[in-house]
């Protein structure tokens, strides 16, 4: 007995929305980063759910890849954050507005 | 439904066993070390000196197993100023919880039959138990690290960081070892692994994993001890340099929880080693219908007895391994931090990888596992 697909999709959509919200409203880069991870997981959930309903492994494989990429992204992203912090002594998104006219 | 209930009971039983093993280790800490170091050790607080009257040697069981716990759990629960209350309280249980829930996947016996119904003696017959182990152990990191961080104390924080780094590093070695084992048995199911270790080679040698994966055994043993942060890997606690490391700011029940975690982890590691390498509940030459001795003689046994024998054998093996780790604890000095990392990354990990390669090669060539 499986959970109805729309529930899962709705859950994933909700988590995704929350992630977006966090990305938009938090000023701490790290927390923004975490919000990104939230979104990733929401999408993963959708993949898994649809994959299992369609009876294919593809969804899971894609999630597998998403995890890998997330790992890489976390490594590099955090390294960048560290180097930024060394240079600017801040992790606040609205203090890091150098790429500007 | 019955399965669920029985499973719950078994789970409770397993956790109970685990905790008791932890306590046994605690006792062994005291008395065993005294034994090794040729001291008297814990010998106080015998109630009414009864044992003395009976002329029994004073094993200091009381003050180890009764007085100390009482003392611990009646102490004041102290939270340092400026500490993060929530996390400070949460940390020990985050540390303890994963270990607890890990016990439930360990098969401690074959099947037992009650009133015509057969139950597997494994609380949670999980078909991906090996992964489950890794997952829970991985989660275990947070308790220690958060505990260190939440104490608002430099020593504690250092201890936490050390603990985190150490556990993460050795998780890799552990994972590699387990992967090799999984390749060998061709299954993630611990019960299946144990079943495969039944029977004998050449008519007399039990088909235990240790004979197939000695290297994996060494890896898993080392990594396991490191995971449980026991000597010689107790840098996170490192009394001489960090006082008590991440436990520094803890007292009473919480500290007890932390210590319990370590001990339970050790017990867990012992169980895993037994499961992976020493045939779990398998008794040499014992089959469902009784002993088939190498000579060819057959001693018939009742199925119930066989099952119980399995459980007992499992416990005995675990105790032996625990004691072995205790020996190690009192034999080896503590590593230096760089030595620790070097050992983890430059020795264990490459060994693990090589082991995986060889194993996979052999498996492919031999066609099929075991």
């Amino acid at each position: 007995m499986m959970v109805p697909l729309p529930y899962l999709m709705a859950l994933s959509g909700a988590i995704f929305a929350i992630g977006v919200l966090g990305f938009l409203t938090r000023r701490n880069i790290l927390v923004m980063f975490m919000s990104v991870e939230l979104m990733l997981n929401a999408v993963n959930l959708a993949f898994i759910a649809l994959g299992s309903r369609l009876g294919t492994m593809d969804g899971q494989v894609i999630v597998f890849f998403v995890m890998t990429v997330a790992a890489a992204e976390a490594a590099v992203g955090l390294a960048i954050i560290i180097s930024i912090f060394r240079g600017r002594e801040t992790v606040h998104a609205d203090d890091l507005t150098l790429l500007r006219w | 439904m019955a399965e669920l209930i029985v499973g719950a009971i078994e789970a409770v039983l397993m956790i109970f066993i685990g905790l008791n093993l932890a306590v046994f280790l605690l006792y062994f800490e005291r008395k065993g070390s005294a034994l090794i170091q040729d001291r008297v050790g814990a010998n106080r607080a015998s109630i009414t000196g009864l044992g003395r009257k009976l002329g029994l040697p004073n094993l200091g069981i009381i003050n180890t197993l009764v007085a100390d716990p009482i003392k611990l759990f009646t102490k004041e629960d102290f939270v340092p100023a400026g500490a993060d209350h929530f996390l400070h309280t949460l940390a020990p249980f985050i540390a303890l919880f994963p270990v607890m829930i890990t016990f439930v996947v360990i098969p401690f016996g074959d099947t037992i039959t009650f009133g015509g119904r057969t139950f597997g003696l494994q609380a949670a017959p999980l078909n991906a138990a090996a992964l489950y182990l890794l997952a829970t152990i991985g989660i275990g990191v947070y308790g220690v690290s958060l505990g260190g961080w939440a104490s608002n104390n430099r020593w504690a924080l250092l201890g936490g960081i050390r603990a985190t780094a150490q556990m993460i590093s050795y998780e890799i070695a552990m994972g590699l070892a387990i992967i090799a084992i999984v390749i060998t048995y061709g299954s993630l199911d611990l019960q299946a692994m144990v079943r495969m270790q039944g029977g004998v080679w050449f008519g007399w040698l039990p088909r235990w994993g240790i004979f197939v994966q000695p290297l994996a055994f060494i890896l898993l043993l080392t990594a396991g001890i490191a995971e449980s942060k026991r000597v010689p890997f107790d840098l996170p606690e490192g009394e001489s340099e960090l006082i008590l490391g991440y436990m520094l700011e803890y007292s009473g029940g919480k500290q007890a929880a932390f210590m319990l975690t370590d001990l339970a982890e050790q017990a867990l590691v012992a169980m895993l080693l037994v499961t992976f390498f020493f045939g779990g509940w398998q008794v040499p030459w014992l089959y469902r219908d009784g002993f088939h001795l190498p000579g060819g003689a057959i001693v018939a046994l009742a199925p119930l007895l066989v099952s119980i024998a399995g459980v007992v054998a499992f416990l005995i093996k675990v105790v032996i391994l625990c004691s072995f780790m205790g020996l190690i604890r009192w034999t080896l000095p503590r590593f230096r931090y760089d030595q620790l990392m070097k050992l983890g990354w430059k020795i264990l990990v490459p060994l693990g990888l090589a082991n995986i390669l060889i194993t996979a090669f052999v498996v492919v060539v031999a066609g099929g596992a075991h």
Partner: protein
Amino acid sequence: MPIALFWFLAAVSLISAFGVVLQRNPLHCLLALIVTLLAIAVLFIGEDATVVGFLQAIVYAGAIMVLFLFVIWLLNLRAEMGPTGHLGLKLFGTIAVAAMFAELMAFLLPPHLQIKFAGHAAGYGSIDSLSQTLFSEYLVAFEVTSVLLLVAVIGAVALARRSTASEIQEHAADNARKERSAAQ
């Protein structure tokens, strides 16, 4: 998976997700995130994606998040005091996100997503089937991903490591040489 369990997990994941967004202390956010990940992992397992679920717990919750933890420690981040972010951004951001959520619901809930589902084949989501798929039709992607990881490691090291004393001296020497050449 029992529907009740699903509701429970959904509640947990949503609450903790909100926790990620709303808490002030980055560490608490991290914890909340970990909880979310674990809940989602269980959901995976409930969807017969056993291996991926455990991987989620091991890799995501067990490793990547520790990375975050380390960074938080390294930067010694404490709770943010005072208002965080721009008010306008918060307001409009919330509105936009609400709109997007509404759209997503409208897009995901309706019946056209009701896929007729007749149970899973044996061994679906087991490590065997995953490996089969992964190493047959996704092999190239898999290999490329390994390269990606390697590159990421190198990049992370290159970005985060402090230059050693000798390197600093070299750098200074270079600059001096440049100036001299410029002077000439």
